[in-house]
């Protein structure tokens, strides 16, 4: 099952490089992956919990290293997100003039990096799969990007390269911090060792700091976020969809899967720092987003900003907050992918994404306008969309911390400040919507075609996903429940 999900995109990419018809093969491969991931979500036995669909292949005896796949509710949700966004990204790919094969192969490699990481139970492969996405990103932005693409490609590659080596140090330290007889990269073994108090307090805080910085760079945590808007603005739309929608979730997934459960005391030690940085994400980056004059940059910054809410859920470390963070990862992935897809279509038609040049497009592109409106509401977090359900859980979870505490806990103050972020994002998203689709139409845009019929299906798929989770959040919470059974003793003072 998981073997198929992990290797389907890789094999598809190789087939394309070897000469299979590029677009058709990519679509089929992505669709098969998405169906398999959805099936996995339904087949997961939530009552039993734990990691299921486990398969392992030993690699190195002396290192106790194995190629180990397995998934629980959180991984399956992420796998489904990755496969769905991959399918839509391939679908949204416009005709490619230069090296079509390479483009689709890069896209599939990018996605399989994320998929492999989500499905790995072995920390070594968890890390290695993510890095697999680095070179395709470099090529996608450098060859098919737009704007200042060379600088953007360098920046993202070097940032992520250094960030992931910091992460690697953290993981090696983690491997070394466990007593030798328990030493392994197997996540389950590490969990058992950590539960038995195998990791000292000092080691926990050191490792958690490294992991926070390492994952933080990949997630675009506040002072390390500058690569993200630039890369997303320059990347071709399908690449931006996958990177912002899926790959960035790898870091959050790592925090939820590795850092928090294995190093609860380390998380506690650095919680204040995390809260300050996440407020930087929400407030500072939120204000920066307000100042953007181009749609692609604005979306890039908004995706950085929304990471702050997910961090808030992680910082709360209780059941509601963590579940909310997990659902928000899914919801944000869907909504940002939809927005980048539409932005790419607008750029393809008009050749510009400067907000003041556009206007009135709703008259000629009613479907695109409608879809963009839906995506806007989803991104703001209006009730009915998955983002709303998730953000409510995050805020409740974060505010609940220290509810029986005299006076205000730092997290409660942070929650109150973070609530203003919702207002900020409403301002910039609605303003963007107005200046693109409302108002007087420029004569230049009078004859623009609306989205073609074939492009409507992926939009409907994405919208349906966010609506289903929005109206029935229990569909996801059912599988997530076994992942976060109890609060992590992190946030309590």
């Amino acid at each position, binding site marked *: 099952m998981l073997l198929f999900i992990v290797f389907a995109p890789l094999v598809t990419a190789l087939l394309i490089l070897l000469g299979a018809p590029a677009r058709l093969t990519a679509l089929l491969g992505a669709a098969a992956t998405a169906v398999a991931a959805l099936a996995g979500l339904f087949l997961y036995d939530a009552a039993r919990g734990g990691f299921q669909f486990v398969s392992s292949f030993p*690699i*190195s*005896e002396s290192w106790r290293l194995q190629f180990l796949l397995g998934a629980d509710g959180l991984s399956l949700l992420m796998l489904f997100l990755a496969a769905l966004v991959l399918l839509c990204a391939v679908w949204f790919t416009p005709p490619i003039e230069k090296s079509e094969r390479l483009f689709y192969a890069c896209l599939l490699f990018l996605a399989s990096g994320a998929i492999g990481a989500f499905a790995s139970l072995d920390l070594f492969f968890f890390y*290695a799969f993510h*890095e697999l996405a*680095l*070179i395709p990103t470099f090529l996608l932005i450098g060859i098919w990007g737009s704007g200042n693409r060379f600088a953007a490609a360098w920046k993202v590659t070097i940032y992520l*390269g250094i960030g992931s*080596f910091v992460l*690697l140090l953290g993981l090696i330290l983690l491997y070394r911090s466990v007593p030798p007889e328990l030493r392994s990269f197997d996540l389950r073994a590490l969990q058992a060792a950590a539960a038995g108090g195998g990791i000292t307090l000092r080691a926990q805080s050191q490792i958690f700091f490294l992991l926070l910085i390492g994952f933080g760079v990949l997630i675009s945590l506040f002072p390390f976020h500058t690569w993200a808007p630039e890369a997303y603005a320059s990347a071709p739309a399908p690449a931006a969809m996958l990177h912002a929608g899926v790959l960035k979730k790898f870091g959050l997934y790592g925090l939820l899967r590795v850092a928090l459960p294995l190093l609860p005391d380390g998380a506690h030690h650095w919680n204040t720092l995390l809260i300050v940085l996440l407020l930087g994400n929400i407030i500072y980056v939120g204000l920066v987003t307000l100042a953007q004059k181009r749609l692609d940059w604005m979306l890039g910054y908004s995706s950085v900003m929304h990471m702050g809410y997910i961090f808030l859920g992680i910082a709360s470390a209780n059941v509601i907050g963590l579940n909310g963070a997990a659902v928000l990862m899914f919801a944000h992935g869907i909504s940002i992918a939809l927005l980048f897809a539409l932005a790419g279509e607008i750029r393809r038609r008009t050749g510009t994404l400067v907000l003041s040049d556009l206007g009135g497009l709703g008259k000629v592109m009613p479907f695109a306008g409608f879809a963009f409106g839906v995506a806007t509401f989803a991104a703001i977090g209006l009730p009915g969309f998955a983002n709303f359900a998730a953000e409510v859980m995050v805020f409740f979870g974060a505010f609940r911390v220290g509810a029986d505490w005299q006076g205000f806990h730092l997290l409660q103050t942070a929650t109150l400040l973070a609530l203003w972020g919702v207002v900020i994002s409403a301002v910039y998203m609605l303003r963007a919507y107005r200046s693109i689709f409302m108002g007087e139409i420029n004569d230049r845009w009078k004859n623009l075609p609306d989205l073609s019929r074939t492009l409507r299906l992926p939009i409907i798929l994405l919208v349906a996903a966010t609506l289903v989770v929005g109206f029935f959040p229990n569909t996801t919470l059912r599988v997530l429940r076994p992942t976060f059974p109890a609060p992590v003793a992190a946030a309590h003072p």
Partner: protein
Amino acid sequence: MIPAPFLEIAVLTWGLILLMVDAFAGKTDRRGVAIAGILGLLVVLAASFFLTPPTPAAASGFWSFYTADPLAIFFKRFALVTTILVLVMAIDYAPAIRMGVPAANPHAGLGEFFTLPIFTCVGLMWMASAIDFVMIFVSLELVTMSFYVLVSFTRRNPATLEAGVKYLILSALSTGFLVYGITWIFGVTGETNLTQIGTVLATQEIDKIPLLFGIALVLVALGFKIAAVPFQIWVPDVYQGAPTPVTAFLSVGSKAAGFVVLLRVLTPFLMLPQVGRLLVGVAALTLIYGNFAALPQSNLKRLLAYSSIAHAGYLLIGVVTFSGAAVAYYLVAYLLMTLLCFAVLVVVGNSGGSDQIEDFAGLAKRSPFLAFAMLIGMISLAGVPFTAGFLGKFFIFDAAIRQHQTMLVVIGVITVGCGFYYYLKVVRAMYWLTPPADSQPVPLSALSRLTMTLLIAAIFVLGVYPQPILNALDQPAARATISMFR
């Protein structure tokens, strides 16, 4: 079953035979010599798997300066593989040799160019087994002598002559340091055998100052061989000027031999804290210099020269932390990826281009296979997972963390970031830029294509499954040797 010293004797004899054949071959095509050399070395490589196990007690006479422990056997195979790959490259490089050597006969010089690496190989194999300073010195000289000729082989090219002179003078100087250092150590301990020196150091009260002086002098000479800062000045010029296959040989064979000797020489001296501190400093400087100086390079050979200094830095971390297995694995990874890059460079450089990175512009369009091979080589050098280069760095960083070398780890992470920039610069040229209008596909011989495919496969296989290399060094008999480095 074959006794280990027969391997060197076989290679040496085969080299002499080929040299004689070349002398009387007249005007026939000399590529046959190279093919014969490759086949001969392959036979020896196969024979190295059928050795008589060494008798543990025999540490007198011949066996007091020659050892056949797993580390030695491992690096003998390493030298053989390197030489085979260099000879494959040399066949592709033959046209450039013909142009670079002034002679009436179009085949003049080619025979020597194909046989000299075989003699270097003998030196490298002996060096892997040397456990006595005299033996180390003699085998080192055999290697260096053949390199003197090889580096300045295309003597019509002024840059090559410059490289040859630089290499000759600086290498001779470093040899002087080595001999001087050996005499000091001999003067203090009364021994040239490394094991005996270890015993003397452990049992007798001796004056530390002259001993340290001697070690420092030996380290100068070895630092020259492995291109460690501050003895790296010769590297960029010599690498750029030498014929490309020779550059590849220098950067892999010579460096690997240097590290084997370094591991062996340091074993008795590891209890001296001063030596450790000195090496940490050298490793840090080498990492910083190699990586930062590589950033602005626009010539691929020069870039690879600085990258070879940078990798010497990572390897030195392994030496400082006494992890022989990590060093050995890293050297294997380094062999695969560096030779892959040089192989592509030879082929592309031959087809009219020079060694400038700009000449790789749009290679992905002209020859997708070559561009892919270079891409794999570069990302492996940069350390992207699923390649051997990543696992090498992984083992090295793990060793450094285990030994609490925090400073080296921090410097290592920063320099890895630099590496991403300068290696991907080549990828950028191949994939982002458009080829010049008049460009043609680069011709590629079947032998080279096969070699490159094998190298790529090896990079990926070892990048996921390192166990064969770790096993080769982890046999029960090897434990004793390796444990000294742990």
